[in-house]
């Protein structure tokens, strides 16, 4: 437990993927680190198969590993004129809780970024001219290039034992991988996992249609693996208990397994679990953090001093901490000035269900978290945005993280929801239903943002973070176009029936149904303090000894899952902090 009187070199707030990466790198550099985590210490989950963890009632109904919303949540509204109401029950997204964070109950999909994702604003001007992007879109380039991040992408894959097949290695195309990926300096640490039926079907349909299917990069080990920290992973057993669940087999990469298990007893590193950080304390000038105020496990308010503070509490909670601590100027949607809260985006997902006859053994109860087959033919520069009527792109994939009956059995449109007919339908379809998923980008808009709610507070008396967000016609068009492509692939396989949930015209954001936990932006990285909260090293422009690490830094949401980029940015940030900031104690320029 922390000794409150002692000053640490660094405080880490939140111990999921980013916090663990930061803590490990700092501690390895000889710095003293205290990591605060509001939830319990879940490091002891590792090891033996724990059968209770297979229970769907506790995993997917009680959501044992996800944050309870009782004490802390967000308010949400569709437009800035409306009154926001609280996110009272878990629906649309699932915040992590406890040591490991959402890195414990994620699926494992582990993409890098496409090079053009990181310079989207410039790329669109080059491809389609200066007037192509509508004025309401606040597109920005990342202030860092793919080439600069490549060593960090590579290292994070090695930490996670990521499975996959190289598509472009040192500039040379490789058979079987994604031909559109940025050039890699090395292969994936592990080969792909075996294909399940739906991925094999998808691969066939995509090849037939002339697309370029490739194995989804996934941090679900396909064999025994030891990472650079000496942590070991075991082969995935396809349990189908990935999203919502803690891995049964030490096969899914997690901060606990792949980083923190190597830090047991590491000198200079301490964890304060069940300790809620309330705010970052600044000195009188407001330009330097002196530490944090937190509630210890007995609920007593304490102050902990440190020379640096790394906010690693996930995108939304990072933005919340910045706002309640007065770090950076809050965004004002009317003047479009201010930086904290701007560019909030949310991944645009949809699904196509394929209902097969009894001869197709889809077996959806089996699954390998992130693994499967995807196509990138409608993403990045592959897509002519001037022809499709929207900006951005998407991936289409067959991924099967697994499901059981408590998690819900999809049925064709028109099937009864109850009664004898429902019973016959679930028995008929359960084993023979597959799905394809569509994961599209989301552009930032001047009137979609995060700020503090004027009415609702959390259990600690702080205003809740307020989200003003709805789907734009651009994202609806992307959803319809991409889901249409996926539907065609599905139909080409001759299922009995197909059902899809692309966004209809005028669709509004639905907070009640789980879609994705890819909440991005709100404190973005950029090259100007006028339009970004953080510089290219994720360092606050205004309070340079605060680093804000996470998907909050994304100027917009690309088609890919965020974790690979989040991990790479964490390494990029902390390595530059160690090499430059700590020596000079000023902004890294």
């Amino acid at each position, binding site marked *: 437990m922390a000794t409150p009187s002692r000053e640490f070199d660094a405080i880490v707030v939140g111990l999921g993927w980013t916090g663990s990466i930061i803590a490990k790198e700092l501690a390895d550099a000889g710095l003293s680190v205290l990591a605060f985590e509001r939830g319990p210490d879940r490091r002891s989950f590792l090891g033996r198969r724990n059968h209770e963890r297979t229970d*769907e009632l506790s995993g997917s109904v009680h959501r044992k590993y996800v944050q309870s919303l009782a004490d802390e949540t967000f308010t949400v509204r569709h437009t800035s004129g409306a009154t926001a109401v609280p996110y009272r029950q878990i629906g649309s997204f699932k915040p992590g809780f406890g040591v490991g964070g959402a890195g414990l109950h994620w699926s494992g999909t582990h993409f890098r970024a496409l090079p053009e994702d990181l310079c989207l604003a410039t790329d669109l001007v080059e491809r389609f001219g200066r007037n192509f992007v509508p004025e309401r879109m606040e597109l920005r380039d990342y202030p860092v290039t793919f080439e600069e991040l490549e060593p960090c992408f590579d290292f994070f894959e090695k930490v996670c034992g990521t499975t996959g097949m190289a598509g472009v290695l040192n500039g040379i195309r490789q058979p079987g991988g994604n031909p559109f990926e940025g050039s890699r300096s090395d292969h994936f640490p592990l080969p792909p996992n075996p294909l399940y039926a739906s991925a094999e079907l998808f691969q066939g349909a995509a090849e037939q249609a002339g697309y370029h299917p490739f194995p989804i990069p996934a941090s679900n080990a396909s064999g025994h693996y030891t990472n650079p920290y000496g942590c070991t992973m075991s082969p995935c057993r396809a349990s189908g*208990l990935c999203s919502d669940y803690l891995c049964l087999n030490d096969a899914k990469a997690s901060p606990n397994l792949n980083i923190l298990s190597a830090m047991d007893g590491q000198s200079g590193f301490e964890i304060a679990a069940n300790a809620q950080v309330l705010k970052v304390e600044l000195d009188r000038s407001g330009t330097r953090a002196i530490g944090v105020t937190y509630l210890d496990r007995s609920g007593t308010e304490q102050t902990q001093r440190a020379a640096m503070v790394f906010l690693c509490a996930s995108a939304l909670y990072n933005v919340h901490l910045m706002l309640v601590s007065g770090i950076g100027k809050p965004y004002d949607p009317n003047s479009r000035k201010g930086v904290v809260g701007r560019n909030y985006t949310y991944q645009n997902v949809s699904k196509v269900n394929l209902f097969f006859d009894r001869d197709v053994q889809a077996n959806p*109860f089996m699954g390998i978290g992130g693994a499967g087959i995807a196509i990138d033919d409608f993403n990045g520069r592959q897509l002519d945005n001037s022809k499709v009527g929207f900006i951005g792109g998407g991936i289409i994939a067959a991924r099967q993280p697994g499901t059981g009956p408590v998690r819900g059995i999809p049925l064709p449109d028109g099937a009864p*929801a*109850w*009664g004898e007919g429902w019973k016959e339908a679930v028995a008929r379809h359960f084993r023979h239903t597959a799905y394809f998923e569509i994961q599209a980008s989301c552009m930032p808009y001047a009137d979609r943002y995060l700020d503090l709610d004027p009415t609702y507070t959390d259990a600690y008396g702080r205003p809740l973070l307020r989200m003003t967000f709805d789907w734009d016609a651009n994202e609806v068009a992307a959803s319809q176009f991409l889901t249409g492509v996926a539907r065609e692939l599905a139909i080409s396989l001759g299922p009995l029936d197909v059902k899809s949930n692309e966004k209809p015209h005028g669709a509004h954001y639905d907070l009640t149904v789980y879609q994705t936990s890819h909440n991005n932006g709100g404190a973005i990285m950029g090259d100007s303090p006028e339009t970004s909260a953080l510089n290219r090293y994720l360092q606050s422009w205004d309070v340079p000894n605060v680093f804000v690490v996470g998907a909050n830094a994304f100027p917009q949401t690309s088609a890919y899952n965020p974790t690979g980029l989040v991990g790479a940015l964490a390494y990029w940030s902390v390595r530059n902090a160690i090499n430059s900031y700590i020596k000079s104690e000023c902004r890294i320029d």
Partner: protein
Amino acid sequence: MHDGQAGQTGAGVWGSFFSPIERDFLIAFCDRLIPDSAFGPGAIRTGVPQFIDRHMASPYARGELWYRQGPFCEAPRLLGYQGPLTLCEILREGIRASDEYCQRSFGRRFPELSLPERETVMRQIEDGEIEFAAIESSRFFAMLLAETRIGYFSDPVHGSNADMASWRMIGYPGYPADYREAIRERIEPYDSRPRSVSEAGR
């Protein structure tokens, strides 16, 4: 332990939340949501009403995982349930209001209606056609249907799904959670008797 006895801890045992009148309602309602037939087991045979009663004692049903501070404002349905009630209170209120509606319309409580009458009332509740005072009737229906399905399909360690009968019906293997080899099979249906978490390690 052979088939049929696995993990029936607490099967058919009531909890302490619902009154006898509420239990009668649950039995009559769940019986229509998932009826019993030669094709497969119904909610009553598998102990679903009792499961729901016991489940009402969980932090989940008591609203302990929900943000419950006011003010409680009207909001678009897409932003979720915004009222002050918890799940168990919603079910209790919906049962009371449904029975009251049946008394008013038929002069009998819901369990005393004929099967076709019950199903007609249930469709009206499902479609939100009946006005309840404290909760939208369609929301009550959706929540009770969700609880019924959860009870029907949950692991027998939770006291329902007796004999894992619902898992047998749909072909869900339950606990095994090890498909490293089976995932490669394309032709043969996965064939294994279902197993409960309670059998783990045996």
